[in-house]
């Protein structure tokens, strides 16, 4: 009798252990998750130090003015930066006071690596005039970058016979991918 009860208890214990083991296996369920994200081509642009090309004190005819602004660019693709005067003199987009304009040959720019420097590409080392009819290159062959700067130095030579007035223009910087 005692042996029978003991045997029964052993069998019961074995059944319970087996049941726990099986339930433990059944409780272990695995599945997989596959995170996915689509990253688009992304470009950012900010123009800094723009007040450096707002020469607020009056300057005499024949004066030379200069100023440097910086373009800050971020891109996960190759990029190009260009500039074009988009308003000013009615036909040439040169600096104008509404009646007179300053010839484009007197208003030139160069560009170089700013801070932080772009990791690839090149700027304009020899001064070239702004062109109201076309985009002109500022930085070509730019490579992927989280943040870089391109310094653009403006040089304005006011002709000695330039009529007095307040001369303005708008220059639009464009960054494109590829």
């Amino acid at each position, binding site marked *: 009798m005692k042996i029978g009860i003991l045997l029964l208890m052993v069998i019961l214990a074995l059944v319970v252990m087996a049941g726990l083991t099986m339930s433990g296996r059944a409780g272990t369920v695995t599945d997989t998750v596959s995170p996915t994200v689509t990253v688009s081509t992304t470009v950012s642009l900010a*123009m800094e130090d723009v007040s450096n090309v707002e*020469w607020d004190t009056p300057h005499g005819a024949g004066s030379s003015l200069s100023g440097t602004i910086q373009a800050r660019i971020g891109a996960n693709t190759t990029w190009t930066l260009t500039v074009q005067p988009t308003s000013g003199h009615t036909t040439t987009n040169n600096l104008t006071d509404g009646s007179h304009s300053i010839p484009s040959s007197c208003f030139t720019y160069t560009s170089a690596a700013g801070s932080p420097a772009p990791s690839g590409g090149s700027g304009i080392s020899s001064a070239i005039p702004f062109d109201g009819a076309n985009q002109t*290159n500022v930085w070509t062959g730019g490579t992927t970058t989280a943040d870089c700067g391109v310094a653009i130095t403006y040089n304005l030579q006011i002709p000695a016979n330039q009529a007095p007035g307040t001369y303005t223009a708008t220059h639009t910087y464009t960054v494109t991918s590829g």
Partner: protein
Amino acid sequence: MKVWPARVELTIDRGETAKTVVRVGNEGDKPIRVHVYAMDFCADKKHGLSLSEPGHESFSCSAWLDLDQTDFELAPGESKEVKVAISVPPEVEPGGHHAALLFETVSLKVETAFSVTISARIASLFYLTIPGVTDADVFASAEIVSLTMPGLAAGGPVEVGVIVRNTGNVHLEVAATAYFYGLWGRNVGELDLGQVVILRQSERVIEANWEKTPFLDKVKAKVVIGYFDEHGELVNEDATASFWVTPQRKIVIAAAASLAALLVLAWLSRRRYRLRLERR
């Protein structure tokens, strides 16, 4: 200001309308006013991008773009979606069509004695493929027009490039790599020239600088371009050209130094001979 995607590629049937979204964000610490508009564009041989009024360029699709909003303000850190509907006319040539969607920040004009108002804009370039009646109506192909490299180089960096013409009727992304071999055929270098998008019936230059040139060698450059055709198959084309790498300045200096050394040796030898004669 940030724009994404900066490049949109879609295939749309004639007479159909497709919709997409381009997002713009203000990453600065001041509010900005944004003006959105479409323009034509083309890319010239030397990477130069040229923008023009809608309808000016052949294969323009700027007139097909319809925007749900064109002027809005963004607070610092705010971003917005611009919904773009592209409606392809029923009668249009199959193949590639393209346009630029421009996001421009509007700046306040400053009136000082001489001042330039600076405006910034980012282009999201749209490349559309319009299928034809048959698969053969759209084809992608390119050819190498010529290689650009010097005949003689003093050493690195050497500008190496390839002019590629898109001979297909759809835009093409072309990659190029240059392989360099020395006089005895041994590999002396490799240069990734990069990749560009070439519009239909256009040419572009793909170039890079080779820095680590050999000291003195006749270099044969093999430039290989690669692109995917209309079936998605990889196509490679190649062209070769040779140039000399001769550090002329260093050779002249070395030759001058050797000549000077020889002259000094000759003088010393002659002097020693005279001294011997005098002793005798």
